[in-house]
């Protein structure tokens, strides 16, 4: 077996810990929805969902132990493209009201 593949082997224990963290974060999302925080609620929900995705990407999908740079740029790249789409859409939506 190539050394690269040896490194990518993860431990069952790590997986179990990541899973427990994901369940706890789900519980936090659920209870956070009950707090009266107004506009912050959706931001908190998205921040927790982002954290959970980061855990899945890095541990379950082994992004953390990928060595080639091309794997490291995929997620930032897709987020950047997505951000451009969001900014364009909302710059349209936000200024639409003025036109009659």
């Amino acid at each position, binding site marked *: 077996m190539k050394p690269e593949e040896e490194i990518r082997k*993860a431990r069952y224990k790590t997986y179990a810990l*990541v899973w427990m963290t994901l*369940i706890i974060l789900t519980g936090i999302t659920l209870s956070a929805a009950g707090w009266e925080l107004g506009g912050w609620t959706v931001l908190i929900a998205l921040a927790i969902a982002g954290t959970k995705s980061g855990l899945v990407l890095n*541990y*379950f999908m082994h992004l953390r132990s*990928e060595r080639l740079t091309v794997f490291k740029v995929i997620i930032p*790249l897709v987020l950047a493209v997505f951000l451009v789409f969001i900014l364009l859409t909302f710059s349209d939506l936000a200024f639409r009201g003025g036109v009659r």
Partner: protein
Amino acid sequence: MISGRLMKEMDEVKELVSEEVRDDTGARLGMWLFILSEILLFGGMFILYSGYRYKNPVDFHHASRELDVILGTFNTIVLLTSSLSMAASVAATQRGQRRLSMVLLMATMALGLFFLAIKGFEWGTKIEHGIYPNSPTLLARAKGEVLFFGLYYMMTGLHGLHILVGVCILCGMLIFIAKNKMNRMRFVPLENSGLYWHLVDIIWIFLYPLFYLIT
């Protein structure tokens, strides 16, 4: 002397031919590019969702209250657990623990089907109450609620379809492992199926708070 050199070269050629030509890194990279396109596919719908929610915050809140938070949360746990068994199944194959890998893979498939059953039950209850795309009951409601349920059926439906496809792929992988075509030395197709399964999990991680937990 010439024949001796020829024999040696023949041996080298044999060695080259017997070693299977494959590119594991390339295969994984291809899978990641597919995942990138999937993120943008769902991303488009998430943008549509956020645009409509921005325009109709109150209607979205009212419509969201009608979804069953308990079932949504339970389904989240089911899917997260299936991701754990999937990752562990890949690890088991990499270690040559064939039986364990097969059991974990079957558990992943069972959890995926369980998720779909709960989702189907949720949809069924809503449809019984007359809430489905273009239904008279739904069209009589506020515009924002019609949009919310349209997005709900579209996004959870496409997500459910991904789960169904995932279960079929995992079924194929199970057969490969059983036939020993997937083992300690050759596991990239299984690993790539795992990547797909985890991606579907990530999409649900975002769908869950955005549909079930709007305040």
